[in-house]
Protein backbone atom coordinates (compact mmCIF):
# COMPACT_ATOMS: atom_id res chain seq x y z
CA UNK A 1 0.00 0.00 0.00
CA UNK A 2 2.71 2.45 1.06
CA UNK A 3 4.76 1.56 -2.01
CA UNK A 4 1.91 2.70 -4.23
CA UNK A 5 0.86 5.66 -2.13
CA UNK A 6 4.23 7.29 -1.64
CA UNK A 7 5.18 7.93 -5.29
CA UNK A 8 1.65 9.14 -5.93
CA UNK A 9 1.86 11.56 -3.05
CA UNK A 10 5.34 12.66 -4.07
CA UNK A 11 4.32 13.68 -7.57
CA UNK A 12 0.84 14.82 -6.60
CA UNK A 13 1.91 17.17 -3.84
CA UNK A 14 5.00 18.21 -5.74
CA UNK A 15 2.94 19.30 -8.73
CA UNK A 16 0.72 21.70 -6.74
CA UNK A 17 3.29 24.45 -6.40
CA UNK A 18 4.54 24.44 -10.00
CA UNK A 19 0.92 24.27 -11.16
CA UNK A 20 0.03 27.45 -9.32
CA UNK A 21 3.31 29.03 -10.38
CA UNK A 22 2.82 28.27 -14.04
CA UNK A 23 -0.72 29.58 -13.85
CA UNK A 24 0.43 32.87 -12.35
CA UNK A 25 3.23 33.12 -14.88
CA UNK A 26 0.97 32.64 -17.86
CA UNK A 27 -1.57 35.04 -16.39
CA UNK A 28 1.06 37.73 -16.05
CA UNK A 29 2.46 37.06 -19.50
CA UNK A 30 -0.96 37.17 -21.16
CA UNK A 31 -1.84 40.42 -19.42
CA UNK A 32 1.44 41.91 -20.53
CA UNK A 33 0.81 40.71 -24.09
CA UNK A 34 -2.65 42.25 -23.96
CA UNK A 35 -1.27 45.58 -22.78
CA UNK A 36 1.49 45.81 -25.34
CA UNK A 37 1.01 43.35 -28.16
CA UNK A 38 4.02 44.72 -30.04
CA UNK A 39 6.43 42.84 -27.74
CA UNK A 40 4.30 39.70 -27.62
CA UNK A 41 7.03 37.54 -29.18
CA UNK A 42 9.62 38.52 -26.61
CA UNK A 43 7.18 38.01 -23.76
CA UNK A 44 6.22 34.60 -25.12
CA UNK A 45 9.83 33.44 -25.20
CA UNK A 46 10.41 34.61 -21.66
CA UNK A 47 7.12 33.08 -20.55
CA UNK A 48 8.18 29.70 -21.91
CA UNK A 49 11.50 29.99 -20.12
CA UNK A 50 9.73 30.90 -16.89
CA UNK A 51 7.37 27.98 -17.28
CA UNK A 52 10.35 25.75 -17.81
CA UNK A 53 11.99 26.88 -14.60
CA UNK A 54 8.77 26.51 -12.61
CA UNK A 55 8.30 23.12 -14.16
CA UNK A 56 11.70 21.89 -13.06
CA UNK A 57 10.36 21.89 -9.47
CA UNK A 58 7.75 19.41 -10.60
CA UNK A 59 10.51 17.50 -12.32
CA UNK A 60 12.30 17.05 -9.00
CA UNK A 61 9.08 15.63 -7.57
CA UNK A 62 8.88 13.35 -10.58
CA UNK A 63 12.43 12.16 -9.97
CA UNK A 64 11.57 11.33 -6.38
CA UNK A 65 8.38 9.57 -7.45
CA UNK A 66 10.20 7.52 -10.05
CA UNK A 67 12.90 6.59 -7.57
CA UNK A 68 10.25 5.49 -5.07
CA UNK A 69 8.35 3.57 -7.70
CA UNK A 70 11.17 1.75 -9.41
CA UNK A 71 14.02 1.71 -6.92
CA UNK A 72 12.12 1.88 -3.65
CA UNK A 73 12.95 3.67 -0.45
CA UNK A 74 15.29 1.98 1.99
CA UNK A 75 13.31 0.02 4.50
CA UNK A 76 10.12 0.08 2.53
CA UNK A 77 9.58 -3.37 0.73
Amino acid at each position, binding site marked *: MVEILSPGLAIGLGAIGPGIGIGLLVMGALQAMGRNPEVAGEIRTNM*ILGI*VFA*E*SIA*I*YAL*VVALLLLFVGAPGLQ
Partner: protein
Amino acid sequence: MSKLLRPKPLALIIGGIALLVISILFVRVPLPTILLPGEAIPGLSIGNFQITNTFVATILADIIVLVLAFLAVRKMEDVPESKLQNIFEWVYEIFEGMLTDIGGKEKAKAWVGVFLTLLLFLLFANWMELVPGIDSIGVIEPVEVAYAEKGVTVGYGIKHLGPFITLTNDQVKLSAEEREAIKKEAEEAEAAGEKYHPHEPKGYVLTPYVRAATTDLNLTIGLALLVVIWSHVIGFRRLGAKYARRFALPVITGMKPIDLFVGILEFISEFAKVISLSFRLFGNVFAGQVLLFVMAFLISFLLPLPFFGLELFVGFMQAFVFAILTFIYFEQATHSHAGDEHH
Protein backbone atom coordinates in the same frame (compact mmCIF):
# COMPACT_ATOMS: atom_id res chain seq x y z
CA MET B 1 -28.84 21.28 -30.92
CA SER B 2 -30.53 21.51 -34.33
CA LYS B 3 -27.10 21.74 -35.91
CA LEU B 4 -26.22 18.34 -34.47
CA LEU B 5 -29.30 16.78 -36.07
CA ARG B 6 -28.23 17.49 -39.65
CA PRO B 7 -27.21 14.34 -41.55
CA LYS B 8 -23.45 14.87 -41.62
CA PRO B 9 -22.81 15.70 -37.96
CA LEU B 10 -25.32 13.08 -36.93
CA ALA B 11 -23.50 10.41 -38.92
CA LEU B 12 -20.21 11.47 -37.37
CA ILE B 13 -21.60 11.34 -33.85
CA ILE B 14 -23.22 7.93 -34.37
CA GLY B 15 -20.04 6.63 -35.98
CA GLY B 16 -17.99 7.90 -33.06
CA ILE B 17 -20.26 6.30 -30.50
CA ALA B 18 -20.24 3.05 -32.47
CA LEU B 19 -16.43 3.11 -32.50
CA LEU B 20 -16.36 3.66 -28.75
CA VAL B 21 -18.79 0.79 -28.16
CA ILE B 22 -16.88 -1.53 -30.48
CA SER B 23 -13.61 -0.70 -28.81
CA ILE B 24 -15.06 -1.23 -25.31
CA LEU B 25 -16.72 -4.52 -26.24
CA PHE B 26 -14.35 -6.13 -28.73
CA VAL B 27 -11.05 -4.37 -29.20
CA ARG B 28 -9.28 -4.33 -25.87
CA VAL B 29 -5.63 -3.37 -25.89
CA PRO B 30 -3.32 -4.81 -23.24
CA LEU B 31 -1.46 -2.27 -21.15
CA PRO B 32 2.17 -2.50 -22.28
CA THR B 33 4.81 -3.32 -19.74
CA ILE B 34 6.04 -0.04 -18.37
CA LEU B 35 9.75 -0.21 -17.74
CA LEU B 36 12.08 2.61 -16.90
CA PRO B 37 15.31 1.35 -18.53
CA GLY B 38 15.54 0.82 -22.24
CA GLU B 39 14.67 -2.79 -22.89
CA ALA B 40 17.28 -5.04 -24.41
CA ILE B 41 16.00 -6.69 -27.57
CA PRO B 42 16.56 -10.43 -27.10
CA GLY B 43 19.18 -11.82 -29.40
CA LEU B 44 20.37 -8.51 -30.80
CA SER B 45 23.82 -7.46 -29.74
CA ILE B 46 27.12 -6.34 -31.16
CA GLY B 47 29.82 -8.18 -29.24
CA ASN B 48 29.23 -7.37 -25.63
CA PHE B 49 27.04 -4.41 -26.39
CA GLN B 50 23.41 -5.39 -25.92
CA ILE B 51 21.27 -3.27 -28.21
CA THR B 52 18.22 -1.78 -26.53
CA ASN B 53 15.08 -0.59 -28.24
CA THR B 54 15.79 3.02 -27.26
CA PHE B 55 19.18 2.69 -28.92
CA VAL B 56 17.49 1.55 -32.12
CA ALA B 57 15.21 4.59 -31.89
CA THR B 58 18.21 6.87 -31.43
CA ILE B 59 19.83 5.49 -34.57
CA LEU B 60 16.52 5.89 -36.41
CA ALA B 61 16.21 9.51 -35.27
CA ASP B 62 19.80 10.11 -36.41
CA ILE B 63 19.04 8.62 -39.80
CA ILE B 64 15.86 10.67 -40.21
CA VAL B 65 17.62 13.91 -39.32
CA LEU B 66 20.61 13.17 -41.52
CA VAL B 67 18.55 12.07 -44.52
CA LEU B 68 16.26 15.09 -44.31
CA ALA B 69 19.15 17.48 -43.83
CA PHE B 70 21.22 16.03 -46.66
CA LEU B 71 18.23 15.95 -48.99
CA ALA B 72 17.60 19.58 -48.13
CA VAL B 73 21.11 20.71 -48.98
CA ARG B 74 21.77 18.20 -51.78
CA LYS B 75 21.35 20.78 -54.48
CA MET B 76 20.92 24.22 -53.07
CA GLU B 77 19.06 26.58 -55.36
CA ASP B 78 18.79 30.30 -55.12
CA VAL B 79 15.10 30.05 -55.90
CA PRO B 80 14.30 26.84 -54.01
CA GLU B 81 12.21 24.33 -55.90
CA SER B 82 12.28 21.75 -53.11
CA LYS B 83 10.04 22.34 -50.12
CA LEU B 84 12.60 20.66 -47.87
CA GLN B 85 15.23 23.25 -48.63
CA ASN B 86 12.66 25.95 -48.02
CA ILE B 87 11.73 24.47 -44.65
CA PHE B 88 15.33 24.09 -43.55
CA GLU B 89 16.14 27.66 -44.55
CA TRP B 90 13.06 28.90 -42.77
CA VAL B 91 13.89 26.98 -39.59
CA TYR B 92 17.49 28.13 -39.71
CA GLU B 93 16.53 31.76 -40.20
CA ILE B 94 13.81 31.81 -37.53
CA PHE B 95 15.90 30.21 -34.83
CA GLU B 96 19.00 32.18 -35.69
CA GLY B 97 16.89 35.31 -35.29
CA MET B 98 15.57 34.08 -31.96
CA LEU B 99 19.07 33.29 -30.69
CA THR B 100 20.25 36.68 -31.87
CA ASP B 101 17.56 38.26 -29.71
CA ILE B 102 18.81 36.34 -26.69
CA GLY B 103 22.58 36.32 -27.05
CA GLY B 104 23.59 38.69 -29.82
CA LYS B 105 24.70 38.08 -33.37
CA GLU B 106 28.11 36.59 -32.78
CA LYS B 107 26.99 34.01 -30.22
CA ALA B 108 23.91 33.09 -32.22
CA LYS B 109 26.08 32.41 -35.25
CA ALA B 110 28.52 30.32 -33.24
CA TRP B 111 25.99 28.05 -31.53
CA VAL B 112 23.03 27.88 -33.86
CA GLY B 113 24.47 24.57 -35.05
CA VAL B 114 24.32 22.99 -31.60
CA PHE B 115 20.87 24.44 -31.09
CA LEU B 116 19.47 23.10 -34.33
CA THR B 117 21.11 19.69 -33.98
CA LEU B 118 19.59 19.31 -30.52
CA LEU B 119 16.24 20.59 -31.70
CA LEU B 120 15.95 18.38 -34.76
CA PHE B 121 17.33 15.27 -33.10
CA LEU B 122 15.15 15.59 -30.00
CA LEU B 123 12.11 16.52 -32.09
CA PHE B 124 12.22 13.29 -34.06
CA ALA B 125 13.25 11.29 -31.00
CA ASN B 126 10.23 12.65 -29.08
CA TRP B 127 7.74 12.32 -31.89
CA MET B 128 8.67 8.72 -32.41
CA GLU B 129 6.36 7.76 -29.54
CA LEU B 130 3.44 8.80 -31.76
CA VAL B 131 4.26 6.55 -34.69
CA PRO B 132 2.08 3.43 -34.88
CA GLY B 133 4.08 0.22 -34.64
CA ILE B 134 6.69 1.74 -32.39
CA ASP B 135 6.09 0.43 -28.86
CA SER B 136 3.77 -2.24 -30.28
CA ILE B 137 5.81 -4.41 -32.65
CA GLY B 138 8.49 -6.53 -31.06
CA VAL B 139 9.61 -9.81 -29.60
CA ILE B 140 7.23 -11.84 -27.45
CA GLU B 141 8.83 -13.57 -24.47
CA PRO B 142 7.48 -15.65 -21.59
CA VAL B 143 6.76 -13.47 -18.60
CA GLU B 144 8.95 -15.73 -16.46
CA VAL B 145 12.02 -14.83 -18.48
CA ALA B 146 11.05 -11.17 -18.29
CA TYR B 147 10.68 -11.47 -14.54
CA ALA B 148 14.05 -13.11 -14.13
CA GLU B 149 15.73 -10.46 -16.24
CA LYS B 150 13.77 -7.26 -15.61
CA GLY B 151 11.36 -7.90 -12.78
CA VAL B 152 8.19 -7.77 -14.87
CA THR B 153 5.32 -9.41 -12.96
CA VAL B 154 2.37 -9.01 -15.33
CA GLY B 155 1.98 -11.01 -18.51
CA TYR B 156 -0.72 -11.55 -21.11
CA GLY B 157 -2.13 -14.41 -23.11
CA ILE B 158 -1.23 -14.84 -26.78
CA LYS B 159 -3.18 -15.49 -29.94
CA HIS B 160 -2.03 -16.56 -33.41
CA LEU B 161 -3.08 -14.30 -36.25
CA GLY B 162 -1.82 -16.00 -39.39
CA PRO B 163 1.96 -15.77 -39.33
CA PHE B 164 1.88 -13.24 -36.48
CA ILE B 165 1.44 -13.63 -32.76
CA THR B 166 -0.39 -11.01 -30.76
CA LEU B 167 -1.00 -10.45 -27.08
CA THR B 168 -4.57 -10.74 -25.82
CA ASN B 169 -6.15 -8.89 -23.01
CA ASP B 170 -6.02 -11.77 -20.50
CA GLN B 171 -3.85 -10.57 -17.69
CA VAL B 172 -1.65 -13.00 -15.76
CA LYS B 173 -0.09 -11.86 -12.52
CA LEU B 174 2.79 -13.78 -11.02
CA SER B 175 2.09 -14.62 -7.40
CA ALA B 176 4.75 -14.36 -4.71
CA GLU B 177 5.34 -18.15 -4.68
CA GLU B 178 5.70 -18.24 -8.43
CA ARG B 179 8.22 -15.45 -8.30
CA GLU B 180 10.29 -17.33 -5.75
CA ALA B 181 10.17 -20.45 -7.89
CA ILE B 182 11.21 -18.55 -11.00
CA LYS B 183 14.09 -16.94 -9.17
CA LYS B 184 15.36 -20.31 -8.03
CA GLU B 185 14.98 -21.91 -11.44
CA ALA B 186 16.75 -19.04 -13.13
CA GLU B 187 19.64 -19.27 -10.69
CA GLU B 188 19.89 -22.99 -11.33
CA ALA B 189 19.88 -22.47 -15.08
CA GLU B 190 22.57 -19.86 -14.76
CA ALA B 191 24.66 -22.13 -12.59
CA ALA B 192 24.29 -24.85 -15.20
CA GLY B 193 25.44 -22.35 -17.82
CA GLU B 194 22.34 -22.44 -19.98
CA LYS B 195 19.62 -19.94 -20.83
CA TYR B 196 16.65 -20.02 -18.51
CA HIS B 197 13.42 -21.09 -20.17
CA PRO B 198 10.21 -21.98 -18.33
CA HIS B 199 8.60 -25.37 -19.03
CA GLU B 200 5.14 -23.98 -19.42
CA PRO B 201 4.90 -20.18 -19.76
CA LYS B 202 1.97 -18.68 -17.86
CA GLY B 203 1.90 -15.49 -19.85
CA TYR B 204 3.88 -13.45 -22.30
CA VAL B 205 5.24 -9.94 -22.52
CA LEU B 206 6.22 -7.89 -25.52
CA THR B 207 9.58 -6.21 -25.92
CA PRO B 208 9.16 -3.64 -28.68
CA TYR B 209 11.88 -3.27 -31.29
CA VAL B 210 11.71 0.50 -31.06
CA ARG B 211 10.83 2.73 -28.13
CA ALA B 212 11.05 6.52 -28.22
CA ALA B 213 14.69 7.39 -27.62
CA THR B 214 14.09 10.08 -25.02
CA THR B 215 12.31 7.63 -22.72
CA ASP B 216 15.74 6.31 -21.89
CA LEU B 217 17.44 8.17 -19.03
CA ASN B 218 20.84 7.30 -20.47
CA LEU B 219 20.17 9.48 -23.49
CA THR B 220 18.75 12.47 -21.62
CA ILE B 221 21.38 12.42 -18.86
CA GLY B 222 24.08 11.88 -21.44
CA LEU B 223 22.92 14.89 -23.47
CA ALA B 224 22.48 17.04 -20.37
CA LEU B 225 25.96 16.16 -19.13
CA LEU B 226 27.38 16.83 -22.57
CA VAL B 227 25.87 20.28 -22.93
CA VAL B 228 26.63 21.38 -19.36
CA ILE B 229 30.26 20.27 -19.61
CA TRP B 230 30.41 21.82 -23.05
CA SER B 231 29.18 25.11 -21.62
CA HIS B 232 32.00 25.03 -19.04
CA VAL B 233 34.56 24.33 -21.73
CA ILE B 234 33.28 27.21 -23.80
CA GLY B 235 33.18 29.51 -20.78
CA PHE B 236 36.72 28.62 -19.75
CA ARG B 237 37.98 29.09 -23.28
CA ARG B 238 36.43 32.51 -23.67
CA LEU B 239 36.92 33.98 -20.22
CA GLY B 240 39.95 32.09 -18.97
CA ALA B 241 40.76 32.41 -15.29
CA LYS B 242 37.91 34.82 -14.75
CA TYR B 243 35.53 31.97 -15.47
CA ALA B 244 36.86 29.83 -12.61
CA ARG B 245 36.29 32.75 -10.30
CA ARG B 246 32.53 32.45 -10.38
CA PHE B 247 32.79 29.10 -8.63
CA ALA B 248 34.86 30.77 -5.92
CA LEU B 249 37.71 28.35 -6.32
CA PRO B 250 40.10 28.84 -3.42
CA VAL B 251 43.01 29.35 -5.82
CA ILE B 252 41.77 32.83 -6.47
CA THR B 253 42.54 35.10 -3.59
CA GLY B 254 40.83 38.25 -2.47
CA MET B 255 37.43 36.67 -2.04
CA LYS B 256 34.80 37.92 0.29
CA PRO B 257 32.98 35.25 2.31
CA ILE B 258 29.79 35.99 0.40
CA ASP B 259 31.56 35.10 -2.82
CA LEU B 260 32.44 31.74 -1.41
CA PHE B 261 28.81 31.12 -0.56
CA VAL B 262 27.62 32.25 -4.00
CA GLY B 263 30.31 30.10 -5.55
CA ILE B 264 29.11 27.02 -3.71
CA LEU B 265 25.55 27.76 -4.81
CA GLU B 266 26.73 28.12 -8.42
CA PHE B 267 28.54 24.81 -8.08
CA ILE B 268 25.43 23.04 -6.83
CA SER B 269 23.29 24.65 -9.50
CA GLU B 270 25.47 23.02 -12.14
CA PHE B 271 24.25 19.64 -10.90
CA ALA B 272 20.71 20.93 -10.73
CA LYS B 273 21.09 21.95 -14.36
CA VAL B 274 21.97 18.42 -15.40
CA ILE B 275 19.16 16.89 -13.34
CA SER B 276 16.46 19.32 -14.43
CA LEU B 277 17.48 19.27 -18.10
CA SER B 278 17.58 15.50 -18.31
CA PHE B 279 14.59 14.68 -16.15
CA ARG B 280 12.42 17.36 -17.72
CA LEU B 281 12.86 15.83 -21.14
CA PHE B 282 12.69 12.27 -19.89
CA GLY B 283 9.73 12.92 -17.57
CA ASN B 284 7.62 14.67 -20.18
CA VAL B 285 8.17 12.14 -22.93
CA PHE B 286 7.97 9.10 -20.66
CA ALA B 287 4.81 10.41 -19.00
CA GLY B 288 3.36 11.16 -22.42
CA GLN B 289 4.10 7.66 -23.57
CA VAL B 290 2.47 6.14 -20.47
CA LEU B 291 -0.49 8.47 -20.97
CA LEU B 292 -0.97 7.20 -24.52
CA PHE B 293 -0.66 3.58 -23.30
CA VAL B 294 -3.25 4.09 -20.59
CA MET B 295 -5.69 5.91 -22.86
CA ALA B 296 -5.46 3.18 -25.49
CA PHE B 297 -5.89 0.64 -22.70
CA LEU B 298 -9.08 2.33 -21.45
CA ILE B 299 -10.76 2.89 -24.81
CA SER B 300 -8.70 2.05 -27.83
CA PHE B 301 -10.49 4.20 -30.41
CA LEU B 302 -11.04 7.97 -30.42
CA LEU B 303 -10.08 8.58 -26.80
CA PRO B 304 -6.31 8.69 -27.46
CA LEU B 305 -6.79 11.15 -30.33
CA PRO B 306 -6.63 14.44 -28.37
CA PHE B 307 -3.68 13.10 -26.43
CA PHE B 308 -1.81 12.51 -29.67
CA GLY B 309 -2.29 16.20 -30.39
CA LEU B 310 -1.09 17.06 -26.92
CA GLU B 311 1.98 14.85 -27.26
CA LEU B 312 2.78 16.40 -30.63
CA PHE B 313 2.92 19.76 -28.90
CA VAL B 314 4.79 18.48 -25.84
CA GLY B 315 7.32 16.70 -28.03
CA PHE B 316 8.14 19.90 -29.89
CA MET B 317 8.07 22.04 -26.75
CA GLN B 318 10.49 19.81 -24.84
CA ALA B 319 12.89 19.60 -27.76
CA PHE B 320 12.77 23.38 -28.09
CA VAL B 321 13.18 23.95 -24.36
CA PHE B 322 16.18 21.63 -24.17
CA ALA B 323 17.81 23.36 -27.11
CA ILE B 324 17.11 26.91 -25.95
CA LEU B 325 18.25 26.17 -22.40
CA THR B 326 21.46 24.76 -23.82
CA PHE B 327 21.96 27.98 -25.71
CA ILE B 328 21.20 30.00 -22.57
CA TYR B 329 23.71 27.99 -20.53
CA PHE B 330 26.32 28.59 -23.22
CA GLU B 331 25.46 32.25 -23.24
CA GLN B 332 25.64 32.54 -19.45
CA ALA B 333 28.95 30.73 -19.35
CA THR B 334 30.50 33.29 -21.68
CA HIS B 335 28.77 36.24 -20.07
CA SER B 336 31.33 38.02 -17.94
CA HIS B 337 29.59 39.53 -14.94
CA ALA B 338 29.80 43.28 -14.90
CA GLY B 339 30.58 43.15 -11.16
CA ASP B 340 33.64 40.99 -11.62
CA GLU B 341 35.71 43.82 -12.95
CA HIS B 342 35.25 45.88 -9.81
CA HIS B 343 36.47 43.28 -7.32
